[in-house]
Every structure is written in C-alpha cells, then in structure tokens.
C-alpha cells in the first residue's frame, strides 16, 4: 500500500466519484474498484467513507440511485450521474486542473 494514498484531499473523493460515474452507472463497490484500478492502485480510498459521500452527492442532486441487479445477479444499488452532476464534474475538473497546474508551477520554479 502506498502511504501517500490514504489522505485524499477534502472534496477530491466527490470529484473522483463523479468522474467514475460519468463513465456509466455503477454500484458503490464498483466505484471503489474503478477508482483504485484507474489510479493504478496509487489512490486507495477508504471504502466505508465512500457511502456518506455517495449519499451526500445524491442529496445534492448530482447523482441518483436505483436498485438493480449486479453482474453476479445480486441486488445492488446503482448510482448514475445526473445532468446537474455532469455540469458539476466539468466545473470541478476545470478548477482541479487549474489548481494542479498552479501547484506544479510553484514547485518547478523553486
């Protein structure tokens, strides 16, 4: 396990969830797996904390949920990105890139 992976910046988890769901509806475990895989296991999210985040995003109307059947024929709750969520994702992505860019400039100038 990578030691730097445990601390996710506040709000970053939301961004990662939105990004993951923009690829298609997914249940909570699927979201966790996907984030882990696509970050090449560098980011290991705290699995339990995923759920308060998912519910919060649904409260805000950025994602919506529906009970469905998983690949292995189990009852699972699937989350899907809403139009508002897509807009939020775009905003967040833009501001994240800007932030990362700014940090990189500062670091490179030193």
């Amino acid at each position, binding site marked *: 396990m990578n030691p730097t992976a445990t601390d996710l910046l506040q709000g970053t988890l939301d961004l990662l969830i939105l990004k993951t769901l923009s690829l298609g509806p997914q*249940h*909570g*475990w699927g979201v966790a797996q996907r984030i882990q895989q696509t970050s090449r296991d560098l980011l290991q999210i705290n*699995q339990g904390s995923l759920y308060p985040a998912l519910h919060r995003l649904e409260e805000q*109307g950025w994602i919506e949920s529906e*009970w469905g059947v998983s690949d292995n024929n*189990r*009852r*699972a*709750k699937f989350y899907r990105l809403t139009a508002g969520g897509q807009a939020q994702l775009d905003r967040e992505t833009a501001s994240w890139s800007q932030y990362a860019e700014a940090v990189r400039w500062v670091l490179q100038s030193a």
Partner: protein
Amino acid sequence: MSLLDKTTNRLQTLADRERFETDLDDEMRFHLEMEAGKHEARGMAPEAARALARREFGQVDRFKDEVRDVRGVTWMDDVRRDVRFALRSLRRSPGFTLVAVLCLALGIGANAAIFSVINAVLLRPLPYAAPDRLIRAYEMRGDEGKTGSVSVPNYLDWRAQNSGFQDLAAWMEGNRNLEGVGGTERIGSVEVTPNLFTILGTPALRGRAFVPGQDEPGKGQVAVIGEGLWRRRFGADPSLVGRSIHLDGLAYTVLGVMPAGFDFPPGPAAHEVWTLLQPSPQQKAARGSHFLAVAGRLKPGVSLDQASAQLRTVAARLEKQYPNEQTGRSVLLKPLKEAVVGKTRPALLILLGAVLLVLLIACANVANLLLARAAVRRREVAVRLALGAGRARLIRQFLVESLVLALGGALLGGLIAWGSLALLAPLAAGALPIAGGISVDGRVFAFLLAVSVVSGVLFGLVPALQASREDVRDTLSDAGAKSTSGGNQKRFRSALVVLEIALSLVLLVGAGLLLRGFLALSSTPSGLRPDRVLTAHLAVPDGQLKGSSVRVFQPLLDKVRHLPGVRSAGVISMLPIQDAWTNGSYLIEGRPVPKPGQEPSAEYRVASPQLFASLGIPILHGRDFTDRDGGPGSRLLIVNEALARRDFPGENPVGRQIRIDKEAAHTIIGVVGSVRQAGLDQQPLPEIYLPYVQIGAEDWLGNAVLVVHAAQAPEGLTAAVRQEVASVDRGLSLFDVETMDEVITKSLASRRLNLWLLGIFAGIALVLSAAGLYGVISYLVAQRTREIGVRIALGAQTRDVIGLVMGQGARLTAVGIALGLLGALAFTRVLESLLYGVSARDPLTFASIAALLAAVALLATWLPARRAAKVDPMLAIRNE
C-alpha cells in the same frame, strides 16, 4: 434538487424509516460481500477474506451514522423523539395543555378567519386573464375627485382617441325577468359592448361570447349566460346554445355559456345574463347623460400613469370641444381590483391588526403559563443538565413542546375559523365587495401554519431560554428547590400581564368607538319615517313604459291604495338611503347664466303622488304632485329643503322656475324635507323630484320602486300587493320586497360586520388578559403563602391580606391601563375612516372602557386574594 423534492424525499424517508435502514444495510453488506469475494478469488480462506473486507471498510456503524446525518435522518429522529417527549409531558398536565391550546386556538382561529376573508377579498386575483392589467375608467368631476359614470359619446371618443389601452369596453348593470318553463325569475343582467369579453380574456364554457365587429343574429338580440343559470334553469343542456331565451318579454339567442365562477362586473351582486348594449340615437348624442361604466386592458408596457396622462389629454380636448357638457370634467383611472375592493381594504386591515393583537395576547398568556410550568419543572431540568444534556438540546426540546402546543392550537383554531366563517356568512353577505369564495385554501392553510410556528417560537423562546439557564447546584440542593424563582422571572411575567392589559384596552377602545359610532349613525334622522313602510321593486316588461308611465303605474297605484290596511302608496325611481348617482345640472330662471361647469347640480328622482306621504317625507311648502298634474306643456317639480336652502336662501322657492337640460322651464310647486339619499352617513344632497306623469319620466322608471305605507305591520301586505300588481298586468311583477327598516339595516351591513368582529375580538382579548392576570396573581400568592401565613399569625386581618394581594394586581392593572390608553390614543386614529359622529379620541369611550377593564381586572385579582386570606397560618408555615 428543488426544495420541494428535498422535502418530499425527507418526508418519504421519515415515513418509511425501516425501508431506509434495510436499504442502507443491504448496500453496505453487498459491498463487503463483493470485496470478500474478490479476496477469495485470489485464494484467501472465506473466513479471512470476510475479515479483511471488514477491516478495509472501516467501522460500518460509523459510516451508517454519517449517512443518516447526510440524509437528515438523525435530525428527524431527534425531532421525533422531542415530539414524543413533548406529547407525553403535555399529557401529564392536561389542565395546562387544555388552557394553553384554548388560548392559542382563539388567537389563531380569529387570525385564520380574518385572513380567509382577506384572502378571498384582497389577495385572490379577479377571475380574468392577467387581471392586474384591467383598469376601470371614471369621469371625474372637478377637483373633488368625484367619480361618475360615462356618457356614450364620451366613451366612444375615449375609445377612439386613447393610445394606452388595447381596448375599452362599457357596460350598464340592470335586472331582467327571465321567463320560461321554470316560471319568471328576476336575474342580474348587464348590457355590454361587444368587445368586453375579448378584453377580459375569459373563454366561454360552451358556444362563444360576443366578438367585436361580428354581426350577431337576430339584430343583436343575443345573450351570453352564466354557468349557474345554465345549470339551474336549463339543466346544463348543451343544446341551449343557439336557442332562444325570453328576457323581459323579448327573445334573445343564446350565443354561449360562461364558465362557473365567472362574473362581470365583479362585486357583491351576481350577474347571469350579458346582452349587447344598444344605445338609442338620443343616448349616442347626449354627451351630458352619464350612465355607462367603462373599463379597459392596458397595452403591454404601458403603465397606469402613462395611460392616465394620455386619456386626460383626450378628456382635455373634449372639454375644449364641448364646453357646455364637459367643463370641469376629466378622467380617473383605477385598477379594476382597486375599484372593487379599495373601500373595504382599510376595514379589513384594521381587523387583521386587531386579530394579531388578540394572538399576541394569547401568546403572552401561554408564555406566562409556560413560565409557571417551568418553575415547577426546574428540578427535572436541573437533573437533566446534571446528567449531561446540552443546553441547546434542552432549548430545542422546550421549543418543540411550544410548537406542539401551537400546532394543537392551530388545529382547533382552524376548526373555530371554519365554524365562525359559516356563522358570519349572513353578516358578511352584503358587507363585502366580493360575494362568496371565502374558504380555507392553500394560502389560508400556509398562513395558519406560519402563524402557529411564529407564535410557538414567540411564546416558547423566553421560557425555553430561561429554563436552560437553570443553575444546577442551586436547584438540586434542597433549599434551592423550594426557593422562589428569580426576581427576573417575576418581573418578566408581570410585564407580560401589563402588555396583555394594555393591548386589550386598545382593542376594547376600538370596539367601543365603533359601537358609539354605530349607535350615533343608527339614530341619525334619515329624513323619512321608515316604520310600517313596504318597498318593492317593480319589473315592467320592456316597451310597456314607452310613451307614458302613468298608463302602467296609475291603475296599479289605485288598486294598491284601495287595499285594506294601506294608508298610502307611491312610486319613486330610486329609493333613498341606498345610493345616489342620478344627478344633473340645471339653471334658475331670472338669474344670470353661470359659466359652463359652474351650474348648480342636484340629484334627480321621479316620484308619483303620495310618494312623500308614503315615505313620511314632510311637505314644507307648497303641495304634492296630483294625478291631475301633467299633460302637454305642464312642467312641474318639487325640490328638497337642501336645494331650497342652497339656491333660494331666505326665499320661498314655490312658484320659481328651473330650467333642466336647457329646455322649457319647470315651476317649483313644493318643497319637501331632505332625506339622506346616499346612506345614513352622507349628508342630504340637493334634490329635484319630477312628476311621473311628465313626458320623458319613463326613462327613469325602468327600475321603479313601489312604496306602501301600511296601517299595521307592512310584511302582512306583501301577498295582497303582489296579487294586485299581477291583476293589473300579468307581465308586471315585484321583486326585492323589503320593509324600509330592512333597507336601512342593510345599508349599515358593513359597519355592523366591522362592529361585530372587532367586538368579538375585543371580548376575547378581555377574557384572555383577565385570565392572564388571574394566573399571575395566583402564582404570586402561591409564592408568598408562607409570608402571608406569618402575617396572619401576627394578626393581619382578612381585609389586610386581600388589600395586600389586590394592591399587587391593581398596580399591574394601572400600569397596563395607562400604557393601553397611550396606545389607544396613538392607534385609534386608523379607525377614523370607520367612525361616524364620534371622535377617534372620544373621552367618554376611553374613560368607560378603562373603567370596564379595571373592574374586570379587580375581579380577576379578587379571587386569588380571597384565597390568600383563607390561608391557614399554621399549615403555611409548617409546610416550608
């Protein structure tokens, strides 16, 4: 997510709490099983895989709690617990709960009732398309801002020359006899210009309404009818459209049926038939003959002020063009809604203010009860604080208790409002400018809810804050538990009672002033003798009056006069006390002609012989009309005292001549006493009576009123008079049969309603504040039991003890009354518009109301004082 969605979501979660929990459980279990499965697939033992998954996930319960927080479930659970707790604790003290809920129910119920009326009359928009763009247009005379009807040529010129309105329509209200299978029925009717319905924008329910520019069948003898009439008389028959109905003996083709709830013009009277306005050639030419009402729809983007300025320039042009008729006449525009309800607004707002005061008093009362209760519950609070309950949590819990009380009050108050609206309906009929529609709708419900929440916080906050400030150690130690509560609280409770007394005084003074004004008005001499007078409107079929009204009325009057029990009978074009809008100008022979616009003007009415005797109007000089008057060339009239005094001061006007419409001169043959034409609160206006035999008089008698002076109770004559009228001509009928007393009573309907309502509210306020005073004094007595016991033991007499306690009450009462008098002096001025014949600072009212309140307050303090005097000193001292 919108707020509404969120709320529904929340409520769903609340309603289906179990489902929420199982879902949450399932969701997390699924995750754990998937994760464990993944590890197993990599070759782990099932047991170890599950354990690892659990470790990776973290504390399930903690995350569940977080989700609950996010979803607002935690908050709802707490509230639910608080509500349950509040209900339990309220059930434990049913007496307190009952009194508090009753207080609040009275306050909230009164508010809900008045708000329902305000909602129906002031807030609900008129039932037309974009009703706020509909504007009423009046002719305005002079600078006094007197508004009046519009003549046909003026209407046509306004319509052609204005640029601020999409269109202007005109109408004239009346009544028609609807004949047919169901018998003859008198219904409210309106003659309108064809563009009216286009301007209103309300589509017909069946068929169509009038369309401007369209040639209507049957030479314009077409009608649009109301849904109520359609249902009542024609069984909602869809095939009625295209068929004819008979109005006043003429056939009209029904073009369409308007939807339920539609009426025009808006007002207390219902209209069910609309026909086309067909002015005669004379009317089209008579610029000085004002009888049309006009309204229009503003063009988009044009403001009322702009339209007003523009139409005034049109009026100014007309004034120059036709100085004889138009001098001193301009235009006044008013939003249609304002024209309908404007006069009622002040009274309704005053009543709303009054019920808010009642509610404030009720809140003060309940706050007082809660404080008394908090004093008893100090130990409970202290224990809970000692056990670690947060103060915020305690405050919330007390507030929830207040809100539960308030909602209970709102529930009962809603019922009270509903019941009292039903009781008030007969009083409100005729007193409000909009008939019907007073009901509890969503807006009233929202108001009810808002009022109860606000009052719950209002009366609950201070007791809640105070309770949470409890000093734990002090209260729990034995000495503290019985010690009196702080001086702060005592002062606060006294202040509440003083406030209640002051507010009650303001309300009582207001009600007292209204009562004085009403009594003054009721005893105002009307100028006529109303007792034993029967009045009835005469419906005469169209055309029968043409040529001579005598032909119709004289045989009728002869028959009625010969009925046993009839002293005299006459006919008048319009009854006094009701309204005055038939006025015109004239010239006095032998005097220089005044400048245009400066001519004297008077009310015109047409009367038959014996009219004055029947109404009990004295003939002061000269004589009454007789049946021999009239005939070609004979032009006579009678004036009233007000006109005689204005135009012929110090002279006897009998024999002088007056020129009306610049035609032949009329000779004054008599002077009669003045009557109050426009209502008891309006001074008599100068008036001219024309004899009904005169050529042209029939134009005035389309809505003539038969007046019969009876030897005994006039109601007994109704049937006989009706029969005689029908025996003269089958087409003639009577409607709106009332005694003159009833006519006068009706004219006071809105004042009576205001008086009743304010009186009831003031009464409630008095009872509430007396109860509040009683409660506080009782409490103070209870606190001082020991001291009183010591005093009695040391030899104080009953009288001394009663004096001691009552002195305390008297001080509070005196301060309350003093503040109340100041408040009343400041606030009764808003009542001025509702008062008649009494100053808003009438000292007699102020003094007697203060005395009344003082007496009630003394009674409220005497009861606990007497109890105090009966304290057994041994018991009182030992108990401590």
